[in-house]
């Protein structure tokens, strides 16, 4: 029933297994699952090639080195590999943008989608870094630790997400 070739697993099982990943994160690194700070580690490391001064910024500087930061970069890189493997064995590899965009945007224009993807990615990571976490760090990890910051950030994320989604065309 939950074979590797299945296209979809029960969201309850898959979700519960994702939650179990907290165990190695806490035992080996003393921290919880997260994804968004890896974007600072990677982008600041690249920026350092042209702007060595970025190391002097107290915020950017603390994400440049260390086991925890590069562990998270490896984690998100691993996400791409794991998703590739899963999609390959179940025959769910993709290429063109999801058909949901033609419905939500009312156009099949890929340039429009690419522009929105850039803008969306930009706002997503700017917001997540301002909030100090994303759906992983504040969501599945923050709430699982009963952190007040997690409850506030997740409520705000759904508020922003729902308000924006209401401006798009209904997807069904």
């Amino acid at each position: 029933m939950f074979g590797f070739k299945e296209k979809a697993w029960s969201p309850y099982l898959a979700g519960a297994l994702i939650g179990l990943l907290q165990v190695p994160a806490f035992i080996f690194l003393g921290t919880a699952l997260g994804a968004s700070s890896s974007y600072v580690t990677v982008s600041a490391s690249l920026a350092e090639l042209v702007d060595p001064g970025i190391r002097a910024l107290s915020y950017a500087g603390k994400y440049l080195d260390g086991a925890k930061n590069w562990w998270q970069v490896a984690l998100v890189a691993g996400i791409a590999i794991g998703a590739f493997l899963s999609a390959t064995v179940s025959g769910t590899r993709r290429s063109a943008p999801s058909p949901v965009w033609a419905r939500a945007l009312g156009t099949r224009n890929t340039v429009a989608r690419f522009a929105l993807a850039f803008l969306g990615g930009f706002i997503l990571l700017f917001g997540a870094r301002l909030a100090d976490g994303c759906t992983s760090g504040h969501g599945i990890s923050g709430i699982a630790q009963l952190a007040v910051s997690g409850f506030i950030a997740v409520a705000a994320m759904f508020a922003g997400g729902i308000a924006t989604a209401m401006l798009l065309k209904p997807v069904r």
Partner: protein
Amino acid sequence: MSIIAAIGLGLVMGIAFGFLLEKSRVFEPGVIVGQMQMRNFIMLRIFLAAVASGLVVLALGQLTGLIPKLDPKATLYGAQLLGGFLAGVGITLAGACPGTILAQVGVGYRDAIVTLVGGLFGALTFAYFEPTLRPILLTGSPGKLTLHGLLGLPFWPLALGFAAVLVGTLYAMERWRPWRMELGENADGVLPPTKRAERKAEAAAAPARG
């Protein structure tokens, strides 16, 4: 832990994480935008299941001493309200979260590479603006507030109780609408139009009556 060991561990955990994100379908833009329009609840199901199992393993970790210390983030009301709201806007426009962008890249969604580049620029822009934003939004934290801390209770009973509530919620959701109904023909969360949307489309297509 050495950097090399941390990277190896991160890769192994990430591959498992990515495999599960793909199998759960939560990385699909159709699932994420559908959730934000309250037309598809697969994302909420996975999210609550991951929180529930996290609560249980962290409670057990505390009880057994295997996980002696939690790592909650500091509370910053303004930054978390504004940053969270912006992140939510981004989730809908990108059709992704910071972690699931990589899953989209892995399965081959072409627009996900653009989202990833946008995300790197967004994070870098924040890093450069952080010194400016710090006095306005990033100071005056009341500390690493937690529910159990505020209530003066140990973590585990509250965590296990909350997990039980979440499991009950998921059970009710499955009774209300089985998850397979939200999968879509191509397992991408894109569902056929609702009856109401069909009627609306028919009414719009029909010639106007005087």
